[in-house]
């Protein structure tokens, strides 16, 4: 019985256990490199990915609100990429079933740049972009 319980405990997935941090993906400098590190092909442009709460002009590059909503069915993950930052990938979010494919957060931007919202849905990658102008950078000293 004890062994059974132990086995049950062992088999139960540790929900709080986070995946290993994808170091390679966070050290890339362009879209092709990032896609390679994430293990995906070139993403298709999509109008079903929407930016919200995201400014056209950010006065302070250290705190730029970014909201991304995906209307693509079976959205598995959403990533934020900032083209002109020292490293392109800012964050990835895994969306389990039952969680809405909508996230909002705040990021740093070194300078005016395109922001890409990369969505993985049903094994395929989709992307949308938006330019955010920065009047004061958030990466320098």
């Amino acid at each position, binding site marked *: 019985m004890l062994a059974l319980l132990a086995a049950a405990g062992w088999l139960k997935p540790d929900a709080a256990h*986070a995946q290993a941090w994808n170091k390679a993906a*966070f050290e890339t400098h362009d879209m092709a490199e990032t896609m390679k590190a994430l293990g995906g092909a070139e993403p298709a442009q999509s109008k079903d990915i929407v930016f919200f709460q995201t400014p056209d002009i950010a006065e302070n590059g250290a705190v730029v*609100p970014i909201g991304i909503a995906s209307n693509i069915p079976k959205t598995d993950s959403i990533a934020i990429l900032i083209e002109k*930052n020292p490293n392109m990938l800012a964050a990835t979010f895994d969306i389990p079933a039952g*969680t809405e494919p909508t996230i*909002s*957060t705040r990021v740093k931007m070194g300078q005016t740049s395109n922001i890409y919202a990369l969505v993985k849905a049903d094994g395929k990658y989709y992307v949308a972009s938006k330019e955010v102008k920065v009047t004061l950078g958030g*990466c320098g000293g």
Partner: protein
Amino acid sequence: MADPMKIRANLVGDSTEVKVLMNHEMETGQRKDAQGKTIPAWFIQSVSATCNDKTVLSAQWGPAVSKNPFLSFKFKGGAKGDKVVITWVDSRGDKRTDEATIA
């Protein structure tokens, strides 16, 4: 030990809206101090949120996420009184877990 997170979880219709404010420097590794020495990177690398032992969001972050990170998301399946538990782990291996009750 890092300062606690501020977590708010509210039931809106049939989904739970979670808002989190974490306390973290999120040092990029790009900045230099007054002596011109690079300040080493130090940032939250992974975040996970669970409700009733089910993962409702997991994230991996780089140093481009702002200082004292903000995060908001919605999930279905939560009920009033359930607990939302959020854990982060940073690049030094420090971690912090906080929880909030769905209101």
